């Protein structure tokens, strides 16, 4: 009956899939392979490309807005399901950041909303848990203050507690009120910074806490592979919603290299943040001095080394030329910094990044 049909359909699908795959393979190997090189395209200058990329004229703007607005009738239903204890998982093509934040700021005003930007490269899940615990603690405090209950003592600041303790706190029974929860919005729960299994395990554990509800979005077609059955059924407890928006992935795509831009430099914008975050705070500060100089003097060819050394000494970032040089070697190895001979003969340092990228980078490492 129905079952057989289902099985047949599935088989059909599978067959279709493998057929498609082999057809594609064949197409690729049939000698038709084009030998054209990327460099055959008359590529425009990278700066121009970036400028153009930031001014792309949006298509179907009216329809996209109408589409997003059409989801608003679902808001009450979403709130209802969150209150029932489900997590919401939004998928479909297009950036869902604006949609979810609109939902959060119009329909979830009664609850504290905490946002995690999963599309960023470096997210420290422990930090997230600490902040969540602090937010919950605040909420409980104000609540108990109004109902004149007595506060349980915090024995230890949250920042020095272990992950298990934090989770236990978030899952605690301090809040008797079922409707007292923090809503955690995770943009791109499948994002590059959250994609590893350990982080996903922690996210699942956080999602399972009694004081937490999750609203998340995914964009990657294979995102569900991140979760096993325990996570899906007992921890995240997803309700799926297909909400394509066709809005451009503006912020989400910020750290992706432009494919037509000449590889190395753009790549390094992304990697720079990663490299910098692995360095010591002092090294980061040295880099910041250099970056700020470059931003302040966009017309100059670079920062003279002596200049850098003086400033770093003044700020107690380095104690000697030797330490500064070791930092600089590290930067150069990762192509964060390049040396140029200035017209007056002295060596100058400069960072091979566009002003805009540099600003973003500074923001990234400031946290």
């Amino acid at each position, binding site marked *: 009956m129905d079952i057989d049909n289902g099985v047949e359909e599935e088989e059909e699908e599978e067959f279709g899939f493998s057929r498609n795959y082999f057809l594609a393979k064949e197409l690729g190997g049939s000698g038709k392979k084009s030998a054209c090189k990327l460099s055959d395209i008359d590529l425009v200058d990278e700066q121009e490309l970036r400028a153009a990329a930031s001014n792309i004229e949006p298509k179907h703007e009216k329809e996209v807005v109408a589409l997003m607005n059409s989801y608003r*009738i679902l808001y009450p239903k979403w709130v209802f399901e969150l209150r029932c204890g489900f997590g919401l998982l939004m998928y479909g093509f297009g950036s869902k950041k604006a949609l979810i934040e609109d939902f959060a700021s119009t329909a979830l005003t009664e609850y504290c909303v905490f946002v995690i930007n999963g599309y960023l490269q470096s997210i420290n899940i422990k930090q997230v848990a600490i902040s969540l615990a602090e937010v919950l603690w605040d909420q409980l405090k104000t609540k108990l203050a109004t109902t004149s209950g007595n506060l349980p003592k915090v024995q230890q600041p949250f920042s020095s507690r272990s992950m298990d303790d934090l989770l236990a706190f978030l899952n605690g029974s301090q809040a008797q009120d079922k409707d007292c929860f923090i809503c955690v919005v995770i943009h791109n729960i499948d994002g590059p910074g959250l994609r590893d299994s350990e982080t996903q395990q922690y996210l699942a554990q956080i999602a399972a806490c009694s004081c937490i509800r999750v609203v998340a979005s995914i964009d990657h077609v294979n995102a569900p592979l991140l979760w096993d059955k325990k996570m899906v059924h007992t921890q995240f407890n997803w309700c799926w*919603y297909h909400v394509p928006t066709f809005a*451009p992935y503006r912020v989400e795509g910020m750290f992706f290299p432009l494919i037509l831009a000449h590889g190395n430099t753009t790549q390094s914008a992304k990697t720079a943040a990663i490299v910098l975050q692995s360095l010591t705070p002092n090294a980061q500060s040295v880099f910041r001095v250099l970056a700020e100089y470059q931003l302040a003097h966009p017309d100059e060819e670079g920062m003279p080394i002596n200049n850098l050394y003086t400033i770093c000494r003044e700020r107690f970032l380095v104690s000697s030329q030797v330490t500064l040089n070791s930092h600089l070697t590290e930067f150069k190895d990762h192509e964060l910094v390049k040396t140029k001979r200035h017209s007056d003969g002295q060596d100058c340092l400069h960072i091979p990044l566009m002003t805009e990228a540099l600003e973003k980078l500074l923001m990234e490492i400031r946290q």
Partner: protein
Amino acid sequence: MALASAATDSPIQTTSETNDNNLQTFFVLHKASSRKSEKRSTGTGKTRRRIDLSPSSPKKTDKSEAERAEEWDERRYEHLRMEAFELVWSRIDLTIKDVLRGINTNVLNEIHSWVCESFNAIKSFGTLGFAEATRSFPIVAAATCKRLFTGLILTKNMEFVDDLLTFEELGLSLRSHGCHVANLSSMDFSAKNGIGGCLRGFLRQFLTTTLDAADISILASWYREQDNHDSPVVVIIDDMERCCGSVLSDFILMLSEWVLKIPIIILMGVSTTLDAPRNILPSNVLQRLCPSKFILGSPAERMDAVVEAVLVKQCSGFSVGHRAAVFLRNYFLNQDGTLTSFIRALKIACAQHFSMEPLSFILGDLLVEEKQKGEKICLLPEVILKHASQLPSYVRNQMADQTAKSLVHGFSELKRLQKCWSIVVLCLYEAGKCNKIRLLDLLCEALDPDLYISRASNNHVELDKDSGLGMASDRCKRRKYSTFQKGGIISQIVRKVRDLPAVMLYQLLKSWENITVDILEIHEKLKELQSVLRFEDGKLKQNVDDISKRHSSWSPLNIEKDSKAINEKAATLLDCLVRDYLRPMECIPLHEIVCFKNVEKLQLALIGDPRRRIQVDLLEFYKILQCSCCSKSGNVLLPSMHDTSVMYTLAQEHGDLINLHDWFQSFKTVVLQPSTKGKHKSKQSPLSKKRKHKYESENKSEASIQARFCRAVTELQITGLLRMPSRRRPDCVQRVAFGL
């Protein structure tokens, strides 16, 4: 949805300017508004806040009093529905837990007595003197004393999700018997955290303070300080096969050294076979184990028990329609196969029901006031009564008077019919048990309204007007009926009753007697049958007893004939019950209030299919955006189409590798092709002017086309449909998905 329409005044900002928050890894969007308490008391807080916030909007200030009142009502009823959901689900949840606990009771008791025995065995190795006990290192003892008593619990289930609850229960039950229990999972035995992490997690469960250095001697001193010396320490590992072998071995070796000081007993869940420990542990570790085996109930058993308690006996009054039941069954069989997922699907169905059906809150009232005979319903405002009387099932029945009284009657009738239905299903299930009929399959058939109609029409019973599908063609009915006759589960069961051996038939009638005890009319019929049987032959009882005890004096032929007649009668009774009482939910007036039917919504919420849906979004975007410019194009790519869609459609023509150069060129061709409608819909200037404009921006447009190409590639990369060029093939990207 007055609320939602009010919200549409300000469009969502799709083009949010780059603000600081976008680059923070996390931030607080807003705190909980403090008006919450106010809302609690009045129920209007939210609506009012909305109005306060935007006094400039003329629409909102124009709102008439009536509209406001309506909104207020809406909020209030939403709140009621929420409460009703909580009530109903908590009852279902409780029932499920009880049922599962019931299934495991025997095993849990068995395990507990084994734990006690093992503990006594450990104690018999000798007690420690004070000096020995307080030393912070293990005791040197003979190898036989270093063995760990290990219970291997066979879960009979590859999916360990279903057993999480069982192991939790096991922990609770042992704790209630005074044991010290630690529940560990394979997460604690990961290679990454090593034995240290594992030990820390283990100690955490007993000691309240967190330790920097994990050391088992701390546990030893903790155990010594306990008042409760006379109980073992039980370690439960729920999915042993997923543990990292080396960490688990170290853990076992360490515990076995300390077993005299801390009487530790291990319980491990095993989902494959008893060989499992041999596969992941080395022999020197295996020597330290002293295993015993326990077996849990099979998933199918549990499934049947849960379905029986929740959907057939309807512990909460909530029920599902035929199509929803079929979907749930197929989801269980085809998709996931775990009880956990089934329960989750049920919960989603329940939540959806209460969020979408405006009158569902009545179910909560029905539950609370089972004894008060619907007094509260009489108190419902006029509007609601009107609403209820407009439900299709109610209208069909043409209960013309819309008074509260007739509604109350309707509800009690609904309950009665539901009860009869569930009793017949249970009778059928009981009869089908020996035939290995799965309750879920039976349920699907028992809920089918078409079958009910065809049964009714075939027997020339007057067709009720409310049966819902009266307009279905006769042919369709006949076809359905014939399937019922031939292959249907119900008819199969009835036929089996005819062939049942006498002993089993006797037991069956006994169990029916128990099942039907609540509904007098059915119970009477059964009694009638039993008395007739007794009347016809004082032999039946004798028969049964005789067969089971000694050879009867009756000739076998005679017995056979008699019992055949009895079987026939029982089968007729069952048939009769099915015809008269097996009235599916969907054929009862007012069922909309308690019955969930919206399968499509359930399916969408339960099974996300990003792989397929995202590709369809891209390939058929005009269906979603509903723009006037692209929908009529057929298969031709137009420059007005969404860039990423154009790119993905073009990518379909390539093999598994896409040459970037070719791809770019074809994209460029599509984008630049002259279109009759005008390339950019925003420009409404005359054609000549546009052309001029085009020439001027020739250079600029090259850059913008390249930028658009880049962005589309990035977007495809974000969706995971593309892989970036590798070093080996710098000019090609790789396609990832083939076919939907």
